[in-house]
């Protein structure tokens, strides 16, 4: 081995130099005091990943991957790009099953991811998202969704999760909400048939209304290509002022200012479990939740002022 001065260096010295720079890098990344423990943790983490010695739950939720990678990757987007203000995080029950019901918007379901991150960071719980089967049909996206704690929006899975004491997130507007034109922003669409209310009634868990302001402006949807959408078997092909005209650049979400508010939980345990089949009651509760979210959206919009402020 020959170094820059032409002097011989032993492999031992050389490897020591390499580790020196490694240690310096570790100190830089983790801080002076903690680096040793953090580094050991990181090693253990990689060993678990490589040897498959980690755990996933029955739905495919990988806690370790979610906390270490998925949420970490989303955090800068939430904090620096959308500058999310969170209100009413105390309304999220700290233990036990509960159903977070939110409005849906933004052409792609970033609002769901942001809500999950906010719930984790402000209420210290994982939001188990319910998604359409389209998500689970897509390569990579479906895989990440399951690992991030999502499952199929079906009665069976919802009730299973709620009775296991999970915090479940649902977006009852579905495609109608997320794919609505920009001109209809902040107008809640129909809340399906109230299946989420039935599930909450059957399991007796509270419903937490959640209102998200800001996601409507990230990809302003001005058009759709229905023929191509049918061909690709997706609900719509979005056309925004920037997509598909600018290609990949058009996929960058606009930096709108976000506000997320969690409302007072609506208790369902006062109703008997059979009331889940009472369509009048289910309809009434659905309307009540929808009305709460719509009103909160209006008041949040007034509070926000400018779209990018």
């Amino acid at each position: 081995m020959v170094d820059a001065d032409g002097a011989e260096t032993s492999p031992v010295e050389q490897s020591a130099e390499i580790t020196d720079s490694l240690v310096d890098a570790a100190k830089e990344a983790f801080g002076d005091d903690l680096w040793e423990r953090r580094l050991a943790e990181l090693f253990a983490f990689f060993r678990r990943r490589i040897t498959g010695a980690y755990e996933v739950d029955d739905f495919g939720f990988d806690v370790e991957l979610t906390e270490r990678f998925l949420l970490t990757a989303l955090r800068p987007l939430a904090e620096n790009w959308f500058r999310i203000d969170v209100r009413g995080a105390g309304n999220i029950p700290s233990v036990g099953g509960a159903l977070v019901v939110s409005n849906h918007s933004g052409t792609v379901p970033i609002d769901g991811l942001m809500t999950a991150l906010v719930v984790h960071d402000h209420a210290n719980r994982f939001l188990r998202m319910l998604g359409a089967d389209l998500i689970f049909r897509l390569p990579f996206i479906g895989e990440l969704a399951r690992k991030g704690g999502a499952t199929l929006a079906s009665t069976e899975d919802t009730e299973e999760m709620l009775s296991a004491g999970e915090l479940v997130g649902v977006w009852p507007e579905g495609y109608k909400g997320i794919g609505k034109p920009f001109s209809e922003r902040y107008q809640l669409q129909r809340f399906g048939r109230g299946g989420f209310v039935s599930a909450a009634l059957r399991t007796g868990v509270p419903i937490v209304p959640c209102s998200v302001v800001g996601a409507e402006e990230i990809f302003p949807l001005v058009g759709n290509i229905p023929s191509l959408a049918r061909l690709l078997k997706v609900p719509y092909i979005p056309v925004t002022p920037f997509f598909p005209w600018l290609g990949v650049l058009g996929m960058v979400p606009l930096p709108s200012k976000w506000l997320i508010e969690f409302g007072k939980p609506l208790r369902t345990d006062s109703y008997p479990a059979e009331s889940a089949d009472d369509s009048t009651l289910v309809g009434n509760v659905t309307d009540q939740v929808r009305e709460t979210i719509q009103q909160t959206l209006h008041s949040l919009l007034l509070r926000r002022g400018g779209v990018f402020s």
Partner: protein
Amino acid sequence: MGRVVLVTGVGRDFGGRFARLIAKDPVVDRVIGVDVVPPPADLGEVHFVRADIRHQVIGKVIADDEVDTVVHLGVAATTSSAGRRASMREVDVVGSMQLLAACQQAASVARLIVKSSARVYGSSPSDPAKFREDMSPRRMPSSGSGKASVEVEGYVRGFARRRPDVCVTLLRFANLIGPQVNTMMTRYLELPIVPTVLGFDPRLQFCHDEDALDALHHSALADVPGCFNVAGAHVLTLAQAVRRLGRPHIGVPPLALGTLGSLIPQLRQADLSAEQISFLTHGRGVDTTAMRRILGFEPKFTTPEAFDDFAARSPAAAMHLERVAELERQVATLIAKARIYGRR
């Protein structure tokens, strides 16, 4: 007088092991094992009858020995020879029909236990996370052993309607796994490089073969009618399972996987049929609440435990674990050395 048990499918390793197991039970007087091929190992006290269950001779066997318990294992063929697969499935379906017809004639038969498979649920992106026994598949298995199992289950239900006095127990097993198991799934997992479906990491559930034997044994004596999923608790994802085996895996587009499967001889052994590819894409989980609560059976192994028991037979896995741990130790030592060096 003790029980007289007839076991089909003893020509396979699993069937033979079950026949020997139940023959040891004190409440069982006599065990008759039936298959078209002689058993690979000595069956001990089991009385072997070489017969094709597609022929009426089976009815005579049942009548002559006054069989009261029939355990039908000749379903969901896990054949080793790729070419005979289709005809084996035919044997299974037609054989099951004939066996059920023979049971229907025999007044002595009081209970029927049928080994089926969780494949009857199919695999699709619209599946619930865990199938309960009363849920129907979102996408019917249109071919392969899943379809054969669906057909056999149909005949079993028909039999249960015609003979309401017989206690019929149908067990839907998750993929069997264990050091002694050799199925298309184990052959797939033990490929030198495991090709997976690009962009998907399916959830898999396993049942240890010893648990499967115990579940059948339990059902044969418990007299609990109904249909039950049998599987170890929890799930593993495919990537996780392959990593536990210490093997590399590589993502392949689903269409290419089918083509590769028929071109490469090693892959042909692993039987990458359309059914298997959709299973390797979307995976499957089953709910085992009924197994615990109603059937009253508790498996010894969870899914990860069963899988690790299987992985232990593979030398690569043990080496792999040691190697990764060794690497971690080396790096840690290096850093410790560097710190001492740095202080100087």
